[in-house]
C-alpha cells in the first residue's frame, strides 16, 4: 500500500529530490564514481594484507580498517566502552547491555548482502568484497535515539549512494527496503515476540541517495562489533536511531513505501520518516531534549539532529507533524 499523501502540501517528486539527481540520476552517479572522488580500487590495493585476513580483504589485523576522515564534529566522541555497551538491538535482548553479552553468537563471516529489486544490475556481495568496494571514510556523526539519549560515533563506511549507483536503480524505483538477518539460533531475541522478525527498515530513494546516508562497516577504526550491527549497518544521522538498521542481509529497491518494524509495531508512535524533530513529541515523552551519554545534564535536541542544512530540502513542503 502506498501511504504517501498526494494532497496539496505534498511536494512533487521533482521538488524533494535534488534536481540533478532527479533529471538524470544514473548518469550523475556513474559520473561521480568515474570522476573518482577517491578511486574505488585504490584502497583495496593499499590495504596491508595481514595474517588472518582473507587475501583480498581490506580488514587488517585485529579488525583494523584503513579509512580517510571525511567528516569531523566539534563535539567529543562517546567512549568506545559506552558505544559498545549501551545498545538497542532486541535480537540480542531487551537490556542495554544484553547485546554486548549475547551478540557473540552472531557469525559475521561468511556473510553476503543482496542488492536487488527494481535495478538493472542486481548483485549479491560477500561482506569482504563489499567492504573493499569503495574507499572507506571515517565520519563522526551524532546518533540520536528515539528514547532521548544520544552519542557521537566515529563510523567507518561508505555512502549508500555508491552501492545503489552500482546496481543502477530503474526509473520505477522510489524506495529502498532493508532487512536484517533472520536466524533465531544466532539472534535469540528473534524467539520472542517483542517485534515482528526480521527487522525491516526503509528510506525514500532520495533519502537513501543523500550523501550523508552511510553504510557502516566499522567504528573507531575497526570492524563493527557485533552488538553495533556487524558486519554492515545503515547510518542515517538525521533520523532516530531505529532507522539505522543493523546486520543487513538484503537491500531491495521498490516502488512502494516498504513496511518498517517500529511503525508496524506502534504506528502512532513511530513513523516511516522518523526525522529527529524536537518540535514533535513522542506520544509518551518529549523529544525536545536528549541526554548525551557521558553527560549528566540534558541538552537541546536539534532539528534533523543538527543536519538540517543538508537534509531539510528533502522534506520541503511536508507537514512534519503528519509525517513524523
Amino acid at each position: 500500500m502506498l501511504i504517501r499523501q498526494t494532497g496539496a502540501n505534498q511536494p512533487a517528486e521533482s521538488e524533494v529530490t535534488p534536481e540533478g539527481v532527479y533529471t538524470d540520476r544514473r548518469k550523475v552517479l556513474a559520473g561521480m564514481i568515474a570522476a573518482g572522488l577517491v578511486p574505488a580500487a585504490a584502497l583495496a590495493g593499499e590495504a596491508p594484507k595481514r595474517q588472518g585476513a582473507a587475501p583480498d580483504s581490506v580488514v587488517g589485523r585485529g579488525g583494523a580498517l584503513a579509512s580517510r576522515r571525511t567528516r569531523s564534529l566539534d563535539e567529543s566522541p562517546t567512549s568506545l566502552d559506552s558505544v559498545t555497551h549501551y545498545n538497542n538491538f532486541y535480537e540480542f535482548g531487551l537490556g542495554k547491555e544484553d547485546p554486548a553479552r549475547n551478540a557473540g553468537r552472531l557469525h559475521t563471516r561468511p556473510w553476503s548482502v543482496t542488492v536487488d529489486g527494481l535495478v538493472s544490475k542486481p548483485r549479491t556481495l560477500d561482506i569482504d568484497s563489499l567492504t573493499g568496494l569503495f574507499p572507506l571514510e571515517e565520519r563522526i556523526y551524532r546518533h540520536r535515539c528515539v528514547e532521548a539519549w544520544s552519542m557521537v560515533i566515529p563510523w567507518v563506511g561508505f555512502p549508500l549512494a555508491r552501492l545503489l549507483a552500482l546496481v543502477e536503480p530503474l526509473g520505477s524505483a522510489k524506495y529502498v527496503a532493508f532487512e536484517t538477518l533472520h536466524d533465531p539460533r544466532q539472534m535469540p531475541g528473534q524467539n520472542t515476540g517483542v517485534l515482528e522478525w526480521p527487522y525491516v527498515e526503509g528510506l525514500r530513494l532520495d533519502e537513501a541517495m543523500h550523501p550523508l546516508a552511510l553504510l557502516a562497516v566499522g567504528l573507531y577504526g575497526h570492524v563493527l562489533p557485533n552488538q553495533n550491527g556487524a558486519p554492515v549497518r545503515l547510518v542515517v544521522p538525521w533520523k532516530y536511531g531505529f532507522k539505522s538498521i543493523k546486520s543487513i542481509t538484503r537491500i531491495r529497491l521498490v516502488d512502494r513505501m516498504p513496511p518498517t518494524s517500529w511503525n508496524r509495531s506502534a504506528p502512532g508512535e513511530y513513523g516511516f520518516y522518523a526525522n529527529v524533530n524536537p518540535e514533535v513529541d513522542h506520544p509518551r515523552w518529549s523529544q525536545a531534549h536528549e541526554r548525551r551519554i557521558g553527560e549528566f545534564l540534558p541538552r537541546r535536541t536539534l532539528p534533523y539532529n543538527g543536519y538540517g542544512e543538508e537534509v531539510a530540502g528533502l522534506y520541503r513542503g511536508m507537514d512534519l507533524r503528519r509525517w513524523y
Partner: protein
Amino acid sequence: MPSVAFFRRWGVQLVMALPLALLVWRWVGVVQGGEPRALGLSAEPVDFTINFLGLWALRSLWLTLAITPLRRLTGWSWLAPWRRPLGLWCFAYASLHLSVYFGLDLLGSVMALLKDVSRHPFILLGMAGWCLLLPLALTSTRGMIRRVGARRWQNLHRLAYAVALLVSVHFILRVKGFQPEPYVYAGVLAVLLGARGLMALRARGMRCATRSASEQV
C-alpha cells in the same frame, strides 16, 4: 548474630534501605570520578537511576499490598507491623524517582513538568500515582489515624490500590514494543487484588452467615 526478634523488628528497614544504599554508594563512586558503567549504573546513569528508583517504588507498593494476604495465608502476625514502613518506603522511592526526573530531566522547571504532564499520559499516570500517595504518607502516623478516624482512615488508604493500578499502566507505557516485565508486575498485582477480593467476599459471607444464624435464633 541477629536474632529472629531483631529481624522481625528491623528486617523491613534493612531490606528496603539496601537498594537505596547501593545506589548512593555507586553514585559516590561516580562523584569520585569512576566510570558509571563500571559502577553498575550503565553508560547512562541518570536514566538508570530514574528507572531503578521507580522500580523499587513499585516493588515496595506491591510488597505493602502483599502483607495482609500473606499474613492471612501463613498466619505470620509479625508481618502486620511491616505494612506501614513498606508503604512509607514506597513513598520515599517514589519521591526520589520524581525528584531525579524533575531535577535532572526537567532541570527543575515547573513549566516543563506541567507540559510533560499535560501532553503525555505516561507522565500523567506516574504523577497522579505520586499525588495519591502523598495523603497516605501524611496520614501514616498514629496521631493522624486518631484524628482522621479509623474508618475514614481505612477508606482513604484504599487509595493504595488505585495507585497500584495507575503505576502498573505507567510501567507498561515505559517500555517499547511488547516486553514481558511490566506485565509480570501487572499479573502479580492482579493476584494480590484477587486475593483481596476473595478475602472480602469470604468476610461478607461470614457476616451473612452469622446474621442469618442470629436471625434464626
